[in-house]
């Protein structure tokens, strides 16, 4: 806690909109999450990170087509729709990344021969889109009551040409040398998925991962507080 107040004071001294090179200065943008906002899906969540906003809806466990049936676990499907235009290859690859992350945490064996469908709609994109999609998907799965062995969160970071690390980059900050997105689980903050673009050394990779793990603590605290607010009796 002392560390936190120390960094808070430092932020107040500087202009805390971006980040300062490599030190207590990285910050996550303003977060907001609303759950259960759609009446038709079993679970829904809208996750906002700064100006990036993603709406997720979950249906499941529900009926599955015989062609897609798996005999001993649930079939997980992820659909990502962009705001403008038809979905393309980039969306397909993001869908696969999100699906792999979800399959690692969702206890599919409790619901064999069913389907769990996660539908994501990009409402606005201002940087860290994949991380926001992961967070929205997790909150929507929680809202739907799908059994999971852990929560997961997505954290994005960008590496500048001079080695500056920026967490939760905006679209301007994403035009950096490298952008790395990690999915971390809530139990031991282990890595579930990583998707990177650009050039970086292995030292920088480990640094980004450590920074992402520090950031994920805040994201999980946000999850916990928002669920506490919803389910507490006071």
């Amino acid at each position, binding site marked *: 806690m002392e560390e936190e107040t120390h960094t808070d004071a430092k932020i107040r001294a500087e202009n805390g909109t971006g980040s300062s090179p490599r030190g207590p200065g990285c910050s996550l943008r*303003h977060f907001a999450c609303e759950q259960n906002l759609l009446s038709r899906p079993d679970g829904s969540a809208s996750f906002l990170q700064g100006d990036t906003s993603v709406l997720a809806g979950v249906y499941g466990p529900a009926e599955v087509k015989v062609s897609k049936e798996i005999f001993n676990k649930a079939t997980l499907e992820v659909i990502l729709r962009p*705001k403008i*235009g038809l979905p393309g290859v980039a969306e397909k690859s993001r869908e696969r990344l999100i699906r792999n992350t979800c399959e690692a945490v969702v206890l599919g064996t409790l619901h064999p021969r069913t389907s769990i469908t996660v539908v994501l709609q990009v409402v606005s994109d201002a940087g860290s889109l994949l991380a926001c999609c992961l967070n929205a998907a997790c909150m929507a799965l929680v809202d739907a009551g799908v059994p999971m062995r852990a929560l997961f969160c997505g954290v994005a970071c960008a590496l500048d040409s001079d080695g500056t690390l920026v967490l939760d980059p905006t679209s301007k900050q994403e035009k950096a040398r490298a952008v790395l997105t990690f999915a971390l689980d809530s139990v031991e903050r282990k890595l579930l998925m990583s998707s990177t673009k650009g050039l970086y050394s292995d030292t920088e990779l480990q640094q980004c991962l450590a*920074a992402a793990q*520090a950031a994920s603590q805040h994201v999980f605290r946000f999850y916990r*507080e928002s669920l506490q607010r919803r389910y507490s009796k006071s």
Partner: protein
Amino acid sequence: MKETPLSNCERRFLLRAIEEKKRLDGRQTYDYRNIRISFGTDYGCCIVELGKTRVLGQVSCELVSPKLNRATEGILFFNLELSQMAAPAFEPGRQSDLLVKLNRLMERCLRNSKCIDTESLCVVAGEKVWQIRVDLHLLNHDGNIIDAASIAAIVALCHFRRPDVSVQGDEVTLYTPEERDPVPLSIHHMPICVSFAFFQQGAYLLVDPNEREERVMDGLLVIAMNKHREICTIQSSGGIMLLKDQVLRCSKIAGVKVAEITELILKALENDQKVRKEGGKFGFAESIANQRITAFKMEKAPIDTSDVEEKAEEIIAEAEPPSEVVSTPVLWTPGTAQIGEGVENSWGDLEDSEKEDDEGGGDQAIILDGIKMDTGVEVSDIGSQDAPIILSDSEEEEMIILEPDKNPKKIRTQTTSAKQEKAPSKKPVKRRKKKRAAN
């Protein structure tokens, strides 16, 4: 997923209630549900909620060449998508009827009514015009998609700002939003669709049906009107037969409703513009109600990354160093190079298992080490046998064994790597059969 069928008792209940002028949510016959309009941070983005039906609209623009027969007009493109989260029945491939009907209605309402001045979208006649694209996504289906979609479309179009362009002689300059303020589209009027659902062969009518009421209705009448009481589009579907005075009455009701909705839209647009001008916070984050227990916000959070470097160094020190990679490319012929040794060709396994009976797991006759250069024609002959090979012991399967060619084909090896496996043409067929037997 298939749509859950409506039970007979629910259907009867709804119809009886409508006969007694009662609606499930307590509305009157001519009442609309609450309409809520919220805007995003970028121009042209809005979410419209009509009760629980939610539609996201986004307008975007692009400079393109105009259509050949309309060289001085811009292009409008509308696309309504029924997202899979809107209803479990909306699967890609299953909703074509409804989708086509809604898209067609949107087009007629917005394009044919000429609500947007396409002449003003022309930059250089015959060469460059603006293409305005309106994307609508249905997020939640609780009835009356068309009304919500038309409101979202017109709100997004009114909210949108396109980049400023100036033409000086032959030069066309496109200004970024930082250089010059973006310019709104020129919109003549705002057509809004109003839906009327008919029950019991036109005896009862409801405005703005919700999802349950839509399931039991006989027919639907959609009137698109603007606030000047001009009808832009009128469509009756479902095969109900309406009397002339019924249609006239509906159009009068529509006139009243459209006036109210247009006022609401103008107020929302004005509010948003005021907030943006005053520099206040705008966007979807602000439209999340604070008092809702299901909503939660957290301000900007600083993250302490001071120990990141030490942690990273620790991990790298403990980790194994990456293995030495030896890769010197070997140039075989111009156009053919080999990097690394590669792995054994797994097709060889099939050949092996075929020959197991004969040779008892002999050597792998498939791997060829030498490659001829230049002329590069090599005759490879793998296992040409004279006797038929017994592939499986099973007597139940009827298997026809094709004998390989006596003269194996000559195969060019110029474009292949070092390890290769070539077989006479009949071999592949045999292999396939073997696979099935293995299963």
